[in-house]
């Protein structure tokens, strides 16, 4: 397996479905960070066959990882301090997602009104349904 340098402080997102790492990269706005980010695509996985991994060298509090629960709650979040895994964080579905998803309903007020937060709320945790706070349209596709 390709060897990527060990993290001193940061976090590792493991068990990302193969091919989804760039989606997560954009949702977490990792491109805006001024720290080391390693993206590993199509790594071998006993459980998944293939998987993606993202390693980020910055304190996890700098990022809003709630969105990961929405994208794929099977992702494992390992928090690293002094080169050791100190915590494995469980992902849950966020109750509210602000300014990450955009409402695609052309009849929604968010399509014309400036300065509005794009807010989606979890309306059905069982079916993982999010709806726009304004027009109640269901969010579809990532």
């Amino acid at each position, binding site marked *: 397996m390709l060897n990527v340098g060990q993290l001193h402080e940061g976090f590792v997102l493991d068990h990302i479905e193969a091919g989804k790492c760039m989606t997560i990269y954009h949702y977490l706005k990792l491109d805006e960070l001024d720290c080391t980010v390693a993206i590993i695509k199509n790594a071998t996985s006993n459980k998944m066959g293939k998987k993606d991994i993202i390693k980020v060298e910055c304190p996890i509090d700098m990022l809003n990882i709630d969105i990961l629960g929405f994208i794929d709650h099977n992702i494992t979040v390992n928090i690293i301090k002094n080169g050791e895994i100190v915590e494995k964080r469980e992902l849950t579905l966020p109750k509210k997602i602000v300014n990450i998803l955009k409402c695609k309903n052309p*009849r929604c*007020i968010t399509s*014309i009104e400036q300065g509005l937060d794009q807010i989606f709320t979890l309306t059905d945790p069982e079916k993982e349904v999010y*709806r726009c706070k304004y*027009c109640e349209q*269901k969010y579809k596709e990532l």
Partner: protein
Amino acid sequence: MRHLMNPLDLTVEEIDGILDLANDIEANPSKYSHKCDGLKIATLFYEPSTRTRLSFEAAMINLGGQVLGFSSAASSSATKGESVADTIRMISCYADICAIRHPKEGAAYVASTKSSIPVINAGDGGHQHPTQTLTDLLTIRSLKGHLDNLTVGFCGDLKFGRTVHSLIHAMIRYPNVRFVLISPEELRVPSYIREDVLAKNNVPYKEVVRLEDALPELDLLYMTRVQKERFFNEEDYVRMKDFYILDKEKMKLAGQDMLVLHPLPRVNEIAVEVDDDPRAAYFKQVQYGVYARMALILTLLKWRDQ
């Protein structure tokens, strides 16, 4: 302070209170003719409306209050690019209560988040129209005597028909109500109503395409217009607009006590010949609309002052 965005903003008890007040207004109009002396309602109508706007204005005038506002986006600062949020902040300085209609869904909610006066959603795109719902509930309760134990048919444009969405939301809270949803495939009720409202609350409903199949079992038929303004594509509108026409022949299939409601305006979905049928209740509905809005204005102003 409370706003009204969605019929579910009100509890069943609060709705009952508003309907009781509306019935008292109907019985004793002079008792209420000075309740809003010195108060103003702003009617902010970003899209054309005859009935709803005039109904709000008549309601406030009947209560002794006054009215200001605009009746189309073209005659407002929206043409200069003013946002809904800025407009409502300004209107809050001029009026005591406001009714807003806007073609975009969620516009009234945006207004309510920035307003210092009660905001009433008078229709936001194809989304919600809670005062029509109060009107419908008042009409049904006044003419049928109850809001439970009813089989309610909705016919026509159930996709964009906000009055339908709002009334379904409100009626599922009464026991033993079932729905028959009559529409072409393209204009079916949106998935969130079927999944989050009907299925989730175990409300019995069925979907049919032919109006004739549904008529014999209905206590109430709620007809809707296929709304040209909701279509992005003229061709789709033309294909859909004549799908349902309720006429004397079809009315023969309905029970003797079935009421026909329609939020109006009607185009051709109810033939004029049906107007004289004693079951046609859509013009009475207009009168109930004024009483319902009078009761709502009084209630929201009372809650503001508490």
